[in-house]
């Protein structure tokens, strides 16, 4: 048997200190952990639930809070047939404890020190890790120009809508663009279609500016947008993706 010389990532008991209803399908959980290591925007954690008979279910959730925050914020969207997300979205209360380990991942991360304009493209709950980046951008006082393109079904499904509007007002280097794919309210000023080449070109940066592009959401959206970005002439090495699977959650 191999002896471990370096400590593995360990499970910690996180305490839910606050919950915030974001949309009918999504809720944010603010967690306090006994031993939290500063994370990077874009990283995720794993959450493990154990039921009385010992059965365990484990899922990955992106971190929504920026590295500067004193707590860990996860935003979870309910998956209809899910084992874990309905519990986190509808059942967990302040004071409850969850098993959490992380932060995990170093690839799909952004730090304010990185060069190049930033293009963030989110589909549905794919906004979560990108929100950590947008919040980090504002709190770090980054002057790197950043654009967020956020595709949601309907206006009620836009997670962090009010805060995004506020960030776009207060953070001079940050702008947000929305597109709704299943109908818009009267007077809607944003896009009203699936993300396409024209939209990506309008909202993004020319390849000559070497933007860093982060795409997160349901797998079909992520792959379609990544293909468009390559078609527009962006370098593969500047495009980072985080696929959430068929329905945009796990």
């Amino acid at each position: 048997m191999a002896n471990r010389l370096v400590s593995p990532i360990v499970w910690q008991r996180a305490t839910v200190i606050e919950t915030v209803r974001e949309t009918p399908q999504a809720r944010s959980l603010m967690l306090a952990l006994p031993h939290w290591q500063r994370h990077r925007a874009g990283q995720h954690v794993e959450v493990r639930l154990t039921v009385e008979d010992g059965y365990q279910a484990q899922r990955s959730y992106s971190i929504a809070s920026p590295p500067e925050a004193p707590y860990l914020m996860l935003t979870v969207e309910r998956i209809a047939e899910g084992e874990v997300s309905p519990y986190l979205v509808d059942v967990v209360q302040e004071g409850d404890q969850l098993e959490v380990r992380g932060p995990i991942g170093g690839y799909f991360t952004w730090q304010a020190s990185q060069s190049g304009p930033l293009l963030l493209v989110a589909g549905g709950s794919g906004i979560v890790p990108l929100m950590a980046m947008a919040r980090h951008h504002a709190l770090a006082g980054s002057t790197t120009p950043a654009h967020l393109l956020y595709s949601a079904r309907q206006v009620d499904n836009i997670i962090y809508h009010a805060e995004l509007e506020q960030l776009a007002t207060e953070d001079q280097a940050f702008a947000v663009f929305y597109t709704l794919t299943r109908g818009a309210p009267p007077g809607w000023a944003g896009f009203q279609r699936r993300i396409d080449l024209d939209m990506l070109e309008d909202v993004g940066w020319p390849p000559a500016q070497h933007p860093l592009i982060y795409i997160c959401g349901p797998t079909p959206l992520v792959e379609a947008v990544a293909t468009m970005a390559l078609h527009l002439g962006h370098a593969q090495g500047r495009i980072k993706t985080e696929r959430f699977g068929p329905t945009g959650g796990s």
Partner: protein
Amino acid sequence: MDASRRLDGNAAAGLLREIFCWEMTSAAVTCGNCGATNAVGALIIYASPMGTVLRCPACEQPLVRVVRTSNDYWLDISGARCIQVTPDTAAT
């Protein structure tokens, strides 16, 4: 395989961190089949209860297979020519 079930290598970050002492999604893997080099986080995963298979995004060759049994981790990296790990203590 159902294309909509594809995930990024990022999804295996926690599992790989159980085995390796470094954050592994930033490690660079060279495909033994086509020679493409990509970050582990940019590899393709098809989620399966049987185990985790990380494939080359260029040619879909299996590069890293991880199966966890009750007592052991089985790690098959025969599809990869080379894995370059850059220690980064800030990201685990």
